[in-house]
């Protein structure tokens, strides 16, 4: 008798992803006649959480779902998920857990338990327009390695027309929707950690954070190398293609898009450093949902192990541009060939060494919401960095107090 599994997955990088997941599950089902997997496309990350929670409350939870890694605390708080540990009993299993990049696991474990298995994970990187660099008299093969270099390059790259209107900005760090993510890159580079591993304490008012935020604002106001105000995330690649900006910070999830559409030669680099290199991770993990039978859970874990195994993971990475979460994947022939053909793909992997957990706490969306608002207020010049962050910290404290 076959075990039925229902598996929700979001898509955040376009049509190919859905197809690939569907293909992979079909392949698995074909190989394992004792399991039927119903892979259900569940919209964006937001939609997926909504669907999962609604279904769970309606008494009809899925057995497995890919959801943002940062929602781990929320899901625990809602009592919707169970840790993987109960089903990872053998040594082999434990080794398997340790086989993921530690940066990704930071958002997947808490209280000594593993709640999430990294799957469609990403990290932000810096893209640069080699032709623009050349035109500005810079070495087209060298990306800025530090904040200062970024500013320096940026000044050279910022072009104005006769009437003083900027036609090309130096850099573009989008700040719409979820500004905390890219900002976190700056913060980490400045040596700050935004939240603790227990997810019940934030450090928004850390002077290093304030300093990082001030730098972000200065990019527009003082150095005038970035467009002022909130910079739209969705339009950023297009702005890059259109020559509106010579450098941009955005997710590795854009790699395929940029490769296909940039009408010029471009480079990909790690984010520049201040006191250290650094970047947040991002993206989604597998979660096991409550309410399933033991058999279902076991089958689900087996499926997760299969789909994150090197061969499958390689396919997935190549199709979507997500960073393969296990080093061993990069050792496969397929990945090697891919990397040889498209070197930029390796940058994200290499950056993982310096990457830190994405901001994640209990009541995560609310806390990051507060933080986002503070960032927006500072970026748009409505508040100064120190006050805004102090207020945000106070609010976050109020919310998180009950989880300590």
């Amino acid at each position, binding site marked *: 008798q076959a075990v039925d599994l229902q598996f929700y997955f979001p898509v955040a990088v376009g*049509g190919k992803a859905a197809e690939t997941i569907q293909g992979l599950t079909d392949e698995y089902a074909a190989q394992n006649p004792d399991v039927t997997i119903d892979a259900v496309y569940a919209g964006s990350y937001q939609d997926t959480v909504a669907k999962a929670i609604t279904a769970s409350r309606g008494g009809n939870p899925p057995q497995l779902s890919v959801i943002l890694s940062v929602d781990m605390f929320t899901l625990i708080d809602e009592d919707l998920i169970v840790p993987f540990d109960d089903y990872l009993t053998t040594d082999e299993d434990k080794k398997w857990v340790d086989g993921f990049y530690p940066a990704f696991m930071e958002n997947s474990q808490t209280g000594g338990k593993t709640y999430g298995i990294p799957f469609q994970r990403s990290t932000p990187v810096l893209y640069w327009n080699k032709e623009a660099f050349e035109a500005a008299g810079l070495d087209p093969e060298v990306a800025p390695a530090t904040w200062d270099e970024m500013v320096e390059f940026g000044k050279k790259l910022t072009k104005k027309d006769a009437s003083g209107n900027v036609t090309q900005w130096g850099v573009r760090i989008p700040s719409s929707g979820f500004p905390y993510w890219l900002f976190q890159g700056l913060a980490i580079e400045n040596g700050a950690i935004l939240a603790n591993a227990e997810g019940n304490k934030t450090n928004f008012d850390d002077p290093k954070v304030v300093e990082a935020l001030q730098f972000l604002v200065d990019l527009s106001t003082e150095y005038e190398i970035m467009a002022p105000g909130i910079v739209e995330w*969705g339009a950023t690649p297009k702005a890059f293609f259109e020559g509106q900006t010579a450098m941009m910070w*955005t997710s590795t999830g854009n790699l395929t898009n940029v490769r296909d559409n940039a009408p010029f030669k471009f480079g990909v680099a790690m984010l520049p450093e201040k006191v250290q290199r650094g970047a947040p991770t991002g993206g989604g993990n597998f979660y096991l949902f409550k309410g399933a039978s033991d058999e279902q859970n076991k089958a689900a874990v087996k499926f997760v192990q299969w789909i994150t195994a090197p061969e499958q993971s390689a396919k997935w990475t190549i199709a979507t541009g997500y960073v393969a979460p296990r080093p061993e994947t990069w050792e496969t022939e397929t990945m090697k060939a891919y990397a040889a053909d498209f070197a930029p793909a390796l940058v994200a992997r290499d950056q993982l060494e310096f990457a830190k957990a994405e901001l994640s706490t209990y009541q995560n969306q609310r806390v990051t919401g507060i933080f986002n608002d503070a960032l927006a207020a500072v970026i748009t010049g409505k508040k100064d960095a120190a006050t805004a962050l102090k207020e945000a910290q106070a609010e976050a404290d109020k919310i998180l107090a009950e989880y300590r």
Partner: protein
Amino acid sequence: MSGLATNLDRFLNVFAAWALALIWVLPLAYAVWTAFHPAAYEARFELFAPLTLENFVKAWDAAPFARYFLNTFILVTMILAGQFILCTLAAYAFARFAFPGRNILFALVLLQLLVMPDILMVENYQTMRLLHLVDTIPAIALPYVASGFGIFLLRQTFMTVPKELDEAARIEGASFLTVLWKVYIPLAKPTYLAYGLVSVSHHWNNFLWPLIVTNSVETRPVTVGLSVFSAIDSGVEWSVINAATLMTSGPLLLAFLLFQRQFVQSFMRAGIK
């Protein structure tokens, strides 16, 4: 003299109407532009930019759209039929019958206009599960079949139907349902058309509730397929999104082009002094 003034007046009107129309059609025009050109021309409007159908191919391949179209078609038909029947009956009651509690009940209907269905998603999901309807097309449809909007709209229309016509039909021995069927509904035809188009458009484009209450290809509407393109992690790819939008809205545009003439019917209200 006056002829000139009239002509100027007419000219200004036509001019303004067209100016507004051009602004209004801009998003659609942009969608068409991007959908038929390679992505590089998303923000560059050159007359001789190369044309391509690739965006449509890409969009069509991203999801089982054929099936989704069928589902959507079944869905909107179901909703529309339900709405027409339920709203017509209720609106008729409100417009032409006096009964105790009428105002309170009407207030309850108006209340439905205020309540956002999405807010009630969790409760409605539970109801659907109780009814064993999760992952079926009726589950998407049911919460919408009794529409406060429709009842309100039809009530307003029915109220303007001349009472004499109602009376004449009743004299001829027509029961109240016959009167409804033979007098009110035909006279409200433009309103039904308007409501039909609006309702179909709305449910054709509804997304969140269908996404949540259905799981399988056999039940999901086109919007679910469409949503694949509103990806967050990568930037907005206007050419593909717009191709997909045009593809999914195509039938609606077509339906509108077919029906729009019906909006203007000039027979109304002759035959009564």
